[in-house]
């Protein structure tokens, strides 16, 4: 572990690996969520599996939470160290002349996504923990679709989700391909990785936005 703290390259690699892990998770999360629009019964079935399968709950979920924590703790540490590396700032710094806004503002997009995760955890994860382990309710494989749609009824929550997904897109736009460079991959496949990154950074967040808006404008009528 001391190597992780001391070496700038080791820290880069940890950021890259945790980031790629989260990118992979995002695709899996999207695959399940899109069924809430396309096939509510499948959404209920898959959500129930994710909520009650022992491997998912007690092995994969802690790994995911650890991945998120490692990524943002390392990211914030990186920002603090990098600020110290230029204690006296430029009076004029033309950052836009040589690097994209996305690459220069990963801390801003990252912190917005982190704040969103706070709300997202409150909305779904804490609710689930309460439902299953505190309130001790019985299993109900049919409740997930209605609960999800209900969450998107308030306009404010839908707006926050949409804005957060836009910031997530900007974060992915730089972060996804960047993680390959950090791990030493810069070769003939790099242009393809860049293209895939841009497609992924648009399609996945846009898909999440679509799901949020779809449920907001198609509430369950009681």
């Amino acid at each position, binding site marked *: 572990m001391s190597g992780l703290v001391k070496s*700038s390259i080791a820290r880069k690699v940890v950021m890259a690996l945790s980031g790629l892990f989260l990118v992979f998770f995002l695709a899996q999360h999207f695959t399940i969520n899109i069924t809430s629009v396309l096939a509510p019964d499948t959404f209920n079935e898959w959500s129930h599996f994710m909520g009650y399968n022992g491997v998912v709950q007690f092995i994969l979920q802690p790994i995911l939470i650890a991945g998120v924590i490692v990524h943002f703790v390392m990211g914030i540490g990186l920002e603090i160290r*990098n600020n110290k*590396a230029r204690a006296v700032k430029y009076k004029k710094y033309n950052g836009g002349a040589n690097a*994209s806004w996305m690459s220069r503002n990963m801390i801003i997009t990252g912190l917005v996504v982190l704040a969103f995760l706070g709300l997202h955890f409150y909305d779904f994860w804490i609710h689930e923990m309460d439902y299953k382990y505190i309130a001790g309710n019985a299993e109900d494989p049919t409740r997930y679709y209605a609960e999800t749609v209900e969450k998107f009824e308030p306009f404010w929550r839908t707006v926050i989700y949409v804005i957060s997904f836009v910031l997530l897109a900007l974060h992915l736009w730089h972060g996804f391909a960047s993680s390959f460079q950090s791990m030493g991959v*810069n070769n003939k496949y790099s242009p393809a990785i860049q293209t895939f990154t841009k497609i992924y950074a648009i399609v996945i967040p846009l898909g999440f936005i679509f799901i949020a808006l779809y449920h907001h404008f198609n509430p369950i009528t009681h």
Partner: protein
Amino acid sequence: MRLNLKIWRQKDANSKGQMVDYTIKGVEGDMSFLEMLDVLNEELINKGEEPVHFDHDCREGICGACSLQINGEPHGPDRLVTTCQLHMRKFNDGDTIVIEPFRATAFPVIKDLVVDRSAFDRIQQAGGYISVNTSGNTVDANATPIEKEKADDSFYAATCIGCGACVAACKNASAMLFTSAKVSQFALLPQGRVEATERVQNMVRQMDLEGFGNCTNTGACEVECPKGISLENIARMNREYLNATVKG
């Protein structure tokens, strides 16, 4: 042309500096940026004022001595040139030009626009060499076959002049482009493989000790590098470092 200059003036390393405004007339497009500063300094000396201190040496873009953050970019707005190769024709009559020293905690200001870049020397000394006994038994370089592609990439990496523009451009003041160029020029050649493991570990360790920031792959360094050193070198250094760490 007539130009308004805003120049960082700082008496010495311990003084607090400030931006000072100057107006300069009669600047010609064929002057280099440093020649424009020479004209300004002649005027200042004639008026009995302290001239603006700045680094320069060869004035033909190969020594890496000149620096300057010009309008927010190292070596100014032009690409693949050093400040001494930057011509005043790139500016317009009446322009305001902001001139600052390269900023990094690892590059402390000595005076005005002169910064201490000896951190680069110490990174180089940590491993940027090969140990060869040259006392009477030097082997001809061409006796060792080397793939053309690798020899070319090594040469391109070796064109780094160590000016520090990569650090100055990087929002994180990272020195990874410089360090990776120096690692790469040896890593690609059979003579450099012998000490490759220790070299990358020692040079990266020294780079971190000097207080440079961490690379976040913005790519600003590659764009601003007067020699066009590629980000491929940073990826190669990362691979070298990971391999060295795994090997122990």
